[in-house]
């Protein structure tokens, strides 16, 4: 489908969407979407189309949770958005993928500095990466209109419509969290990308084994220890004096609460009414003090004054 241009012209009067429950809620509190440059770049593509109020409506759809679901596959996104009609609208976004050869060329260059792999693995698209794409005659984000096709089942004749805009904004937020999603839309999965990059970082050549993928979410972290039959000696059976002394190390309440969840950042496509990290901060602060009291075995009431 080709882009249609309707400048400054909103045909339909603004309609109120039906209330959507449990939709995806943007975590961006106010202002512009996209903290990262790459997410903003993505949103700039949308905002370059002059669709007037629809951008604003799209943002408020994204914040209110009108987008019910988003699924991302290589080169394509499909989403459901609750509009004013009972049945949610279907939104589809198609992005032109790069060829295998293109990606090979790119990873060849990207492997020459530790920076690219390091920043990407750490969840950030290095700023220098656009230069590498340009030098290879490619672009990170779809630039030409034929690189990007959008459609929505709503009756609005504008494309992009506010529903597409809402999905767009939410995707931008998700790119903040995981820059590899942009590669996915360009036809490259994270694991594949790392494999291509794998042998090139560092001086050596690939040796026998191919760059192994990262283990899936640390599943191997705690392999179940082998069974351990009970001892029969009555001495060790009943236990020893002063067990587990000095196994605590330094116990300190961290100055800034909830460092672990904060390190993880936003939850993918959060739909909750309460912001997750706000809730975490409160819980971690309270729990930390309670934990200290249990550690010191000082009942709460006594430790208060």
């Amino acid at each position: 489908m080709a882009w249609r241009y309707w400048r400054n012209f909103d045909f339909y009067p603004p309609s109120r969407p039906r209330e959507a429950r449990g939709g995806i809620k943007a975590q961006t509190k106010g202002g512009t979407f996209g903290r990262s440059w790459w997410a903003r770049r993505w949103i700039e593509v949308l905002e370059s189309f002059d669709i007037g109020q629809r951008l604003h409506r799209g943002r408020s759809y994204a914040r209110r949770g009108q987008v019910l679901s988003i699924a991302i596959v290589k080169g394509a996104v499909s989403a459901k958005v609750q509009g004013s009609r009972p049945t949610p609208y279907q939104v589809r976004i198609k992005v032109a993928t790069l060829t295998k050869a293109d990606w090979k060329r790119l990873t060849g260059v990207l492997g020459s500095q530790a920076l690219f792999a390091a920043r990407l693995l750490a969840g950030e698209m290095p700023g220098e990466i656009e230069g590498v794409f340009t030098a290879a005659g490619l672009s990170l984000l779809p630039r030409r209109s034929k690189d990007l096709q959008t459609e929505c089942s709503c009756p609005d004749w504008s494309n992009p419509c506010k529903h597409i805009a809402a999905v767009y904004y939410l995707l931008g937020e998700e790119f903040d969290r995981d820059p590899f999603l942009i590669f996915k839309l360009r036809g490259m999965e994270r694991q594949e990308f790392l494999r291509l990059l794998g042998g090139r970082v560092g001086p050596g050549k690939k040796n026998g084994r191919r760059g192994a993928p990262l283990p899936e979410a640390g599943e191997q972290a705690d392999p179940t220890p082998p069974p351990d039959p009970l001892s029969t000696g009555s001495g060790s059976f009943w236990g020893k004096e002063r067990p587990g002394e000095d196994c605590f190390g330094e116990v300190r309440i961290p100055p800034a609460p909830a460092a672990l969840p904060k390190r993880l950042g936003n939850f993918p496509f959060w739909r909750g009414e309460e912001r997750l990290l706000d809730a975490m901060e409160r819980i971690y602060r309270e729990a930390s003090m309670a934990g200290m009291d249990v550690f010191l075995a000082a009942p709460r009431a006594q430790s208060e004054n």
Partner: protein
Amino acid sequence: MIVLHAGFLDNRLLLWGESPVAATTTPASRRGVKTKAGRPQASPFDAGATRLVSTLEEVGLPVPSKRVRSDTVVAWLPTAGGRPVASSPLIAESPDGPASTTLSPWTVTVLPLDCERTTALLCMCIGKQTLASGVVIGKDLAFWRQAMRFAGALVARQQFLPGLEAREGRFRAIWEPGLAGEDRHRLASLAKDMPAVGRALSRGKADCPPSQAALSVLIAFIAGIIDHLVRRAGSQPPVDSLKPPRARRGATDFASLHDQWLHALRAPDGTLEGEPTALAELERQIREWRRPISLAVASPCRLCFRLEEPEVSGEARPSPAASLREGWHVRYLLQAQDDPSLLIPAQDAWKPEARSWAGLAPPMVGFDVREYLLSSLGQAAALCPDVQASLKRPTPGGYRLDATGAHAFLTERAATLEQAGFGVLLPAWWTRRGTKVRLAVSARVRSPKMQGGGGLSLDEVVRFDWQVAVGDETLSLKELEALAKLKAPLVKVRGQWVEMKAEEILAAIAFWRRNPREKATVRQVLQMGLGTTDQVRGFDFRGVTAEGWVGTLLDRLEGRAAYGELPPPRGFTGTLRPYQVRGYSWLAFLRDWGLGACLADDMGLGKTVQALALMARDWEANGKRPVLLLCPTSVVNNWQKEAARFTPGLPVMVHHGVGRRKGEAFREEVEKHAVVLSTYALLHRDLEHLREVAWAGVILDEAQNIKNPETKQARAARSIRCDYRLALTGTPVENNVGDLWSIMEFLNAGLLGTQAEFKRRFFIPIQAEQDPEAAARLKRLTGPFVLRRLKTDKAIIADLPDKLEMKVFCSLTKEQASLYTAVVKEAEQSLKSAEGIQRKGLILATLSKLKQVCNHPAQFLGDNSSIPGRSGKLARLTEMLEEVFAVGDRALVFSQFSEMGEILRRHLQETFGREVLFLHGGLPKGQRDRAIERFQGETDGPPVFILSLKAGGTGLNLTRASHVFHFDRWWNPAVENQATDRAFRIGQTRNVQVHKYVCAGTLEEKIDEMIERKKAIAEQVVGAGEGWLTELSNAELKRLFALRTEGVEA
């Protein structure tokens, strides 16, 4: 008697207990458990449901019968001779000889504990052997207590994450431990200590014992506690919210699954409802969100940053401060999680052969060192621009920086990186807490020399100058200004790196110009000097240097200068040993300055005489004003006797009992006395009368009685005005940080700050953060006011005789007194008509009866009645043994009655929860030898050995004991001495203390006096037995038996 155990099964702790088998009932009828075919038999020691419930009630954890149902499970226990082997001799003797044990199934009654009760119960177990009399904490329970504290520590350090657990199609929102690096290590070492009994419970068919690894069981337990603690903390409504507590809501009440998840994380049960596929999708999302941390946790190593100093070539410049601007380095290293000392430079990790890193055992499946290094560096780059810049190269190994950069790394980047989970290694001169050299201020006091005449007091106002210093270098204003011009944040002063912030230097200059000198009382200066202050207007405060008398005072307090040794005071009739002279002089020194002192000498070193010497001196020197001496009821008599013996010139008044005076009458009476003896029980009750008196001093004997600052006693003790305060205690108070505040607050109010300040500055840093610097600070602050000598100190041993004999005067309880009077009355009646052999028999029988009454009413009545609270001697013995145990000593207790030995054994076992050995005539040789062997040889063996005088009087070698108690007296010193020699024999390397118990005011005391008077000719007079007593006339006997009421408890 019940020994509590707990095993982990079905994801919770199941409480069970062992009780001794009552002799009269058979195990089966006791509980009425039917033995079905194929089902294991009930353990004969099973405490049963009723007993478990009543025990929990007794310790203050009532179990709502509706919600908690007891249950029967299989316990795999070591078994020998068709019976389970009991966990402790308190329950049953272990089988004789090295009988081989097998693991067999038995059924036991369990009480499932929810997390709330688990934590409450385990918190109670901290620092104790028993929960109540006869309720013994099993070693497995002690283990779970440590495991719970481990979980508490993880929560305190915020090492947990929200999650979603899918189990059998049910989904639960849970909080999970994040076990990274060292924590995994610690957990593994804790798991090694898990006793087998902790995982010996199973359900259903009992065909083989459970074999789940200790580590898995431990992780499951800890996860449960963490979930509970966080959930409970999270469910508290936020302080600023007025919303009512969250009500239970159904799945349809939530706009999204995310809402429901967040709600369930804070709800008591945590279950999520909804479409299974949607819930499974949520579970995947959560996993994905947590992925970076799961990866970091799973990784066998972590990225570390090490700041390295420039290498100095040649001689450092002679100026006080030199700055080396260049040549600093931050190096990237990989640190093995399993062995933090294993550090591999990133340069090596980039090499292709490092890919799976053999240095890390066991190498994790699919772990790629370089990929890990890359992603870690990527994360660090976001926090630290220098790292980002270093990534321009393909294989970065670190980066260079100058002094300013190094300073920024030390002060900012290091903390940021550390909090993000990276390792940071800094030079020792920076990390050593407290000794970190930086700009600090100190106060310099000039005061006149100490004059002999005195007349100085702590309320004197002195002037002092502020000084600014770096390390030990005092800096002049000029030097400061020169430093400010250098503008280097890190400079080297005399070979030491020093942090120098320009704004700090400028602030110091400004501060100095504004207030070069100030005024304060000597008391304030002392407190500053000892370290009550860390900071003065934003600057580190380094302490006080003083000249003149204030300096002398500080030096003496801190032990840098000796205080003069005083001659024994007038009116003190005893002889002080050299260390007692030092102790007395120290007490007098602090008293003269109005400072409170805590004398914490080991038991038997003579705290009483030192305190009496002080009172005698003060009475003469300070206008004959009375001292209030508070002690436990059981030692009132002892104080009276000791005062009469060592300071006969001091009039002592006992304020105790129903007839005690109050108000005006009390005040008048007090004025006539030097020492007023009263008890802790009355401290609060009679506070209004006590506060009316202008006391010279308040002395607390057994001062650990006020260790809990919240108690009425502690508050009352603090509120009585007086010139000086003294605390006596034989338990090592300085070892228990938590107990220190209350005693110090009594002695020197304000020294340790408020209770909250104390918790923040000392308690948490020492107990939780293991901050050695806080411990040192506390010691410095309290050290001048606590004197504790151990009987093992070299200097003390030289002053002590090898055998130290003491009498312990005890009182009778009211019950004992009335029994005593009844026996005497009856004897007097019968004696009137008795003659010859009959008279002799009657006298000996009466003697024996009276001794029994003095020992314990239950012994006299022989009725197996309850034990605690009925005998003054027993109360005192229990207190003294507590002190003996507190310092890890062992004791022998002699009684001539084996019935009393049995009572003692029962009582001491129930009170202390530890096995007590008892050797009596009826014990077979094998058991007797085994008991001796255990007492002498076992490391954690039974600390008390009770011996009947006849059975244990001769031929034994019990040199492990350093205390001998004669609970009752054999009126023949030779027999007693023989018994004492069990402990005091060749091979004994420690001094032995012999405590002879005497009930004050009874025949025991009178016979004791007679023996003392006739000691020189004792051998002839008293011969071999007690027969000589029968030669006394009726009138003499009447006087002998008569009870003087002063020895009776009120």
